[in-house]
């Protein structure tokens, strides 16, 4: 038991270092840094490279990475990204850092290829020294992590409570503009806090790499565990972030202990996937429990944001001024292009474009829930995945016609979507995003792992519809279905429900006092989006021939989101282009590049979301605006 306890403290310490940095940067700049784990990863990879390839002394390299490289890295990111985010809507602030979390690992993979996971350089000693403390074996790397966590907690607390810098930070939090007028250099305060936050991330990265290896998987779990701790801290309490980290670490390790496993053995067999998924799920269970237990997480949204969270797509007056056929021209041109495309595409490219179309249908779900509903959902990919899994079960195991099976899958996704919508009734933007992330992780760790669904990583086969089995026939079916679903989304936008959603995006309070049900509006937005994501997911699986859950990974879901927002979250055309670019760009790079450069598309997708800091409405709106400006000027 003591062994598990100590292991829990070590894991908790990793979470603590990361979550303290998250709290500090959120407190000073109101930006929740989704890329914290990715920053840790980037520093760790640089450290690895410096020791293994460049031959630096590990002690010197480690100190350099933590105390020179990390702060500079934080300063650069602040200068090019975080600084620009302070005046953007919460939607952009969130999605930009999601973009950074997608881009940084890809950048690391391009800069530092061929990392050998078996080599684990340490800032201390390799191999690590072993110590026996109170009868428990601890190595030097583990001790360093625990020591760093306690040190970071003490230093940060003193810094914020007892120094002029801390006072300035707290003033900046309450009102950036007001403290700027009273002579506080708010840029300096936020820059320094990002440097400290980056230093903490780098510390966690360098120490964690030595312990668990330099793979992105480790750093992802680091990030996700620390997110839960920050929720426990309600984003602002250093003490609670530290305590929450330790609690999550302990719960996680103790859940793996023999005693607890034995206790669980009374209820289910040891191979039960729910039990196997328990340990990685603990941060998310903790996160959901605290999100639902805390009161007032909705109000914080209004305290932070005074404007609609999702940027508008052109004022109403602009819409009216042009003939309908001019407005429809881009959509018609795209559909015409898609219709004639098979004549020019060979086999590989046809299937690439077809998969893109299936994804484009799933991406329309973002237009509904986020574009129209104004709610940031990170679990759309889970709706698609669940529908794909159900489709496979019905089509293959129950011999239901596959199109009917897809409808059944999408209907189940609607029910799941209703459950996912529940937190949205209580939570503001950021917390809803975190709750949906927790939801998607829980489903992934449990349901997606069951042998019946995962089929030993192969995925359950899904047939194609009778009579539409050729690539070309299926392709045309996808075009038709995209147009149909797009029509539904377009109708929604112009309908009473759409008006109600637009009203709700601007002011839930005023909408409620008109007698419009907020609950219903949110359920409709989530339910419809789950249905659309489900249709897309089922079609994607049917085209691919199997419902492989690794293609519906939560982290791929983050990339989905970055691609959609890059083109424009409010736009049907944007969803189409997002779906196509998600499959076409990687295929293009596969044809022309190799090795490390295959990470380039992911880097581009991440950078696209980062660019929202400049044009929150995405590429399409940017092009439209330039065009309009030119028209007005001429």
């Amino acid at each position: 038991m003591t062994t598990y306890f100590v292991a829990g403290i070590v894991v908790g310490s990793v979470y603590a270092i990361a979550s303290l940095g998250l709290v500090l940067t959120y407190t000073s700049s109101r930006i929740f840094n989704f890329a914290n784990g990715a920053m840790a990863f980037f520093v760790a990879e640089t450290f690895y490279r410096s020791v293994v390839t460049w031959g630096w002394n590990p002690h010197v390299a480690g100190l350099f990475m933590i105390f020179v490289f990390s702060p500079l890295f934080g300063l650069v990111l602040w200068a090019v990204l975080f600084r620009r985010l302070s005046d953007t809507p919460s939607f952009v602030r969130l999605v930009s850092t999601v973009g950074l979390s997608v881009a940084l690992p890809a950048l690391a993979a391009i800069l530092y290829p061929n990392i050998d996971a078996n080599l684990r350089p340490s800032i201390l000693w390799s191999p690590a020294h072993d110590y026996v403390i109170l009868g428990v074996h601890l190595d030097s790397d583990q001790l360093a992590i625990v020591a760093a966590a306690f040190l970071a907690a003490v230093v940060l607390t003193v810094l914020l409570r007892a120094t002029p810098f801390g006072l300035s930070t707290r003033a900046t939090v309450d009102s950036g503009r007001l403290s700027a007028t009273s002579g506080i250099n708010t840029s300096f305060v936020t820059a320094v806090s990002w440097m400290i936050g980056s230093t903490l991330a780098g510390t966690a990265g360098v120490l964690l790499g030595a312990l668990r290896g330099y793979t992105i998987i480790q750093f992802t779990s680091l990030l996700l565990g620390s997110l839960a701790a920050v929720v426990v801290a309600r984003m602002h309490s250093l003490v609670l972030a530290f305590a929450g980290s330790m609690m999550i670490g302990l719960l996680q390790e103790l859940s793996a202990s023999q005693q607890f496993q034995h206790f669980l053995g009374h209820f289910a067999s040891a191979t039960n996937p729910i039990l196997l998924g328990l340990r990685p799920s603990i941060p998310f269970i903790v996160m959901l429990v605290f999100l639902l237990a805390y009161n007032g997480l909705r109000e914080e949204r209004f305290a932070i944001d005074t404007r609609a969270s999702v940027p508008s797509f052109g004022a109403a007056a602009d819409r009216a001024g042009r003939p309908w056929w001019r407005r429809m021209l881009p959509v018609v041109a795209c559909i015409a292009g898609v219709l004639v495309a098979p004549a020019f595409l060979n086999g590989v490219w046809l299937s690439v474009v077809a998969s893109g179309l299936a994804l484009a249908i799933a991406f329309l779900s973002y237009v509904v829930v986020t574009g129209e509903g104004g709610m940031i959902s990170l679990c759309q990919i889970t709706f698609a995945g669940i529908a794909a899994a159900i489709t496979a079960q019905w089509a293959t195991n129950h011999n239901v016609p596959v199109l009917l099976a897809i409808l059944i899958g999408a209907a189940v996704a609607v029910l799941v979507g209703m459950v996912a919508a529940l937190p949205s009734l209580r939570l503001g933007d950021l917390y809803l995003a975190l709750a949906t992330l927790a939801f998607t992780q829980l489903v992934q760790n449990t349901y997606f792992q069951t042998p019946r669904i995962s089929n030993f990583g192969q995925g359950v086969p899904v047939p194609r519809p009778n009579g539409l089995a050729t690539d070309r026939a299926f392709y045309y079916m996808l075009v038709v279905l995209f147009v149909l679903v797009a029509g539904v989304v377009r109708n929604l936008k112009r309908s009473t429900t759409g008006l109600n959603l637009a009203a709700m995006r601007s002011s839930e309070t005023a909408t409620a006092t008109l007698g419009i049900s907020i609950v219903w509006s949110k359920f409709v937005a989530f339910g419809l989006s789950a249905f659309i994501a489900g249709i897309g997911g089922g079609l994607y699986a049917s085209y691919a021939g199997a419902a492989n859950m690794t293609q519906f990974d939560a982290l791929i879901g983050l990339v989905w989101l970055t691609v959609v927002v890059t083109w424009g979250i409010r736009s049907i055309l944007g969803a189409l282009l997002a779906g196509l670019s998600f499959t076409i760009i990687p295929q293009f790079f596969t044809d022309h590049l190799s090795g490390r450069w295959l990470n380039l598309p992911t880097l581009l997708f991440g950078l696209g979301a980062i660019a929202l800091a400049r044009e929150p409405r995405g590429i399409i709106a940017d092009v439209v605006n330039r065009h309009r400006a030119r028209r007005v000027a001429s």
Partner: protein
Amino acid sequence: MSEAGAALAANGVTVRFGGLVALDGVSLAVPPRSIVGLIGPNGAGKSTLFAVLSGLLRPATGTVTMDGDDVTRASPQARARRGLARTFQRQELFGELTVREHLVVAYRAGQRHRLRDLLRYLPVDLLGLGNRPTPGEEEAVDRILGQLGLRDLAHVSAGALGIGTGRLVEIARALATRPRVLLLDEPSSGLDARETAELTAVLRRLRDEHELALVLVEHDVDMVLGLADDVTVLDFGETIARGPAAAIRADARVQAAYLGDKSVGDET
């Protein structure tokens, strides 16, 4: 004034924010087709009382009734259905909708609140079948736009409006729900003298034409005293005076609350 016959009434409402008592046993009665004024210095609890009346805030003690029925625990939506509408001190416009769309949203809200209606309209909304205005909607919306002088701005996006026009849009939106009681939170703030006079005339006409009871929270004391049948004065969460406008104007405690308590001022 009898609270039993009131279209809307607050009875002994108390609200606390942490240790602060924002409202302390405040009562208010709004008879049908009357204009009730609510005045008091900053922080007196006027907007808090509005939040309690409209269902955005639940009081610690006390009740809210509409036509004698207890609605203290009813949602804002349920109260809207019973004929309550309001405007906001800090404007809560729908930035992406046009002025006309504000009224359309409000008008249609009254038609679909039962689950049966919501389910019936959902396929219509998603498939675009028969998605046209219900009979009477266009006329009703146009009439309200006309009454508030907003016809020319009907297709302008609310994000582009000035403060004064925005207040009129909020009033028009509230009227489109076809209320019997309308709560107006500082309708004249941000307006100049001429606009205020126009607004006063509009409000009087609304009461007569729509058979509407109005509750006014105002900083402009003269406007309230000129318009209201009955005035309640709040100070630090307590009712310090209540009665016809003329009596309020003469009330010593009201003058003290507004002009500052001289005796306290002398001691410091």
